[in-house]
């Protein structure tokens, strides 16, 4: 059955109307998803459970509607994810009828790999990067959708929509293919693969506006709530049963939310009152505004403290 026109969605219904920017971004993403599914033999979607993944998943539902999403979701589980993330992942995949594959580097996990033991960089290397490459190889996937955006950081600004990887899964910036119009080159030799980034042209604000406009479910950790935290330097770390407290540390209650979702020991929360999507968007843009005001007017101490705290996340 077709759904009735949803006035909250970005699709709109007007005749002959120029697309607004979210509609244009959506159309581009749907086109990219379909091109990849049409031309690759075994695509998979890297699903991180975060807000960008949530958008990408909705776009995949739209691209192949009324069919189901024609590829599995691959989640690389480090075993350190927030429990709320795992619950959300399992429930949501079931709800939308997607095939979910969870890949863990069991050997490293059994060997006690942890950020305390290995340091964050080596821990990520073992539990994320290695695990991802193994997961892709095991599945024999020739294309993997990722939710990365070009506005995330400087080095991402030149990433292609189709990012070519050699047979070892490596990215060679000198060997990227020119990408003109929307004509993507999907030709591969055995063992080579392509990371496909349907959200390349989306900004962080676009993601939040789309989540709002489309009413897409996200992990509750994004919304502000009174939570147990421990203060570590400039970082507020959520406390749960896996948290290892140092002797001098004390657990305090703060109204906090997560800006991005990673592994529990290594992802900090921010103090926030934003407990709805509009409030999160407002927080995002007001922050930019207060920065503008920074140059024009004097700030009270609390405001500048707030700005500094958040700067740590940019």
């Amino acid at each position, binding site marked *: 059955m077709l*759904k009735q026109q949803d006035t909250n969605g*970005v699709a709109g219904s007007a005749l*002959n109307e120029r*697309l607004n920017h*979210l509609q244009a971004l959506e159309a*581009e993403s749907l086109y990219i998803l379909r091109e990849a599914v*049409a031309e690759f033999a075994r695509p998979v979607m890297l699903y991180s459970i975060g807000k960008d993944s949530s958008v990408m998943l909705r776009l995949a539902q739209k691209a192949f509607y009324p*069919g189901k999403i024609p590829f599995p979701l691959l989640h690389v589980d480090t075993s350190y994810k927030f429990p709320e993330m795992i619950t959300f992942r399992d429930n949501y995949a079931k709800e939308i009828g997607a095939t979910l594959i969870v890949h863990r580097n069991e050997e490293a996990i059994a060997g006690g790999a942890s950020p305390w033991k290995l340091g964050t960089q080596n821990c990520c290397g073992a539990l994320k990067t290695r695990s991802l490459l193994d997961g892709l190889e095991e599945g024999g996937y020739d294309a993997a959708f990722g939710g990365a955006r070009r506005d995330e950081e400087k080095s991402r600004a030149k990433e292609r929509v189709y990012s070519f990887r050699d047979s070892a899964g490596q990215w060679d910036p000198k060997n990227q293919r020119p990408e003109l119009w929307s004509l993507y080159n999907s030709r591969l030799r055995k063992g080579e693969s392509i990371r496909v980034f349907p959200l390349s042209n989306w900004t962080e604000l676009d993601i939040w506006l789309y989540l709002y406009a489309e009413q897409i479910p996200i992990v509750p950790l994004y919304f502000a709530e009174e939570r147990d935290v421990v203060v570590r330097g400039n970082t507020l770390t959520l406390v749960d049963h896996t948290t290892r407290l140092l002797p001098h540390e004390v657990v305090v209650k703060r109204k906090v939310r997560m800006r991005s979702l990673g592994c529990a020991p290594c992802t900090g929360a921010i103090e926030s009152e934003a407990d709805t999507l509009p409030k999160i*968007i407002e927080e995002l843009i007001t922050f930019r505004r207060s920065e503008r005001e920074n140059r024009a007017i004097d700030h009270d101490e609390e405001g500048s403290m707030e700005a500094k705290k958040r700067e740590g996340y940019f």
Partner: protein
Amino acid sequence: MDTQILGLNEESRDRAFRAFLDAHLDQEMLRFTTAGSVDDGKSTLIGRLLHDTKSVYEDQLASIRASRVNRAGAGMVDLSLLTDGLKSEREQGITIDVAYRYFSTSKRKFIIADTPGHEQYTRNMATGASTADVAIVLIDARAFVKLGTLLPQSRRHTYIASLLRIPHVVAAVNKMDIVDYDAAVFDRICGEFTALATKLGLKSVEVIPISALIGDNVVEPSKAMPWYSGPTLLEYLETVPLRGDEVGGPLRFPIQLVVRPDANFRGFAGRVERGEVRPGMRVKALPSGRVTRVKTIVTYDGELKAATAPRAVTLELEDEIDLSRGEMLVAEAEAAPHISNGFRAMAVWMHESPLSVGQTYLAKHTTRTVRATVKAIQYRMDVISAERVTADELHMNDIAEVEFETSLPLFFDAYADSREMGAFILIDAVSNATVGAGMIVAAVDEAPDAAAATHGAEFHLVSGGAAAAKALQVKLEIRGERVVIVDDALIPEATLPAVARALHLAGVTAISARENLSAETLAELRRVAGASFVEGEGR
């Protein structure tokens, strides 16, 4: 509450935020590309646009203020450092490449394709220009005064902007502060640039005097140039009309894939590349020429009453016609695209190994990939003088008019009429590298209509075994038809319809003398071949 839209109470704050959301949910998107080299002040201009539209975070500003590198002069912030990732990469020996940047104002969301100007200039700028609505060509006023004319690179940039058919071109005459904001200098540049633009056939041209370093006429109007009354660069970008050519033309709907979740639904997913599609519209499938009607325009968000370019939708058709990826739906009542195996195109070469006559590549055009052979190089374009010169082969960054012949017909419009319908890329079939890009100028030896592409190709199912098949083949070949027998052990019954279909689309008649075909295969063969299905010898 620590976040406030300044000084408002809860209720009016809420209203202000709703208004903000409504505005942002209804913003247009504009893509532009910047052409110019480091010396023209391009990085400073982009830094200035980002800075003055408040798109830079405080910590980024702090880090460039603290930088030991400062080319802006004492007491000023070197905004070019905001886009400086490129330079450090060059030091590391990494390919200098197109970088994409984003900012928005209350009017529009902008995507900048920032194309660095060095050896790979043509390739990079063509990439950035391919999706741009506006090209900003930077002209260095100081260099103009020194040379007495436009720099060769400005001519090259303007030519590439015209070649890629960027709808609007704006010349930003930079470093006006260094030439004392002299109106006479600006007028001379304006005159020369306008003459060049006219020669190149540019339709929408604007010239704006700026200083990216000081900020004159970039976002804020300049007090130092009271003689200039036009828009600032940002005002121009916020108000220039967006492309309408795709929306206005005849319908073009290349099929991306067939959506078939169950036996009750068969839809064709694709993007409207040109024009508009509506339920009830009579549409023709290319290359088969079959006509049917659009039943519904299906989307996740409900059925649409119409879909215009560049919407991505799924079309359900009234009749079960055979149609798959690489084929196209057009409106029966509207102008048809060109259907041809031969065309001339402006090609931009992007690879170390040269293009030469006789070589064959893969050409990807819309959703269709075919083999394309170089028949002739008509001329190479000297991008600085815009003069035509003869050439035997094309090297990296060369631009030339090339004649191609393809293995199967393409359905296209001239690039001048539609970028999406006239553009293609060339791929090396062995290395898989993208080696070139092309923009179709015109068809060569055009087939008179869609049916001609498959004219005469039939599917014959004969009785009497291999001998009968062979006899019919000889008979048809005498008439000049291309004929193959498909009773090969390598073609199992299940793939017979697919083989028949491929041959049909290639204009080749197929003969089979198979017996005991299943009812399913027979039905599929009849569906695939349609009216060209012949039992026995026919005719």
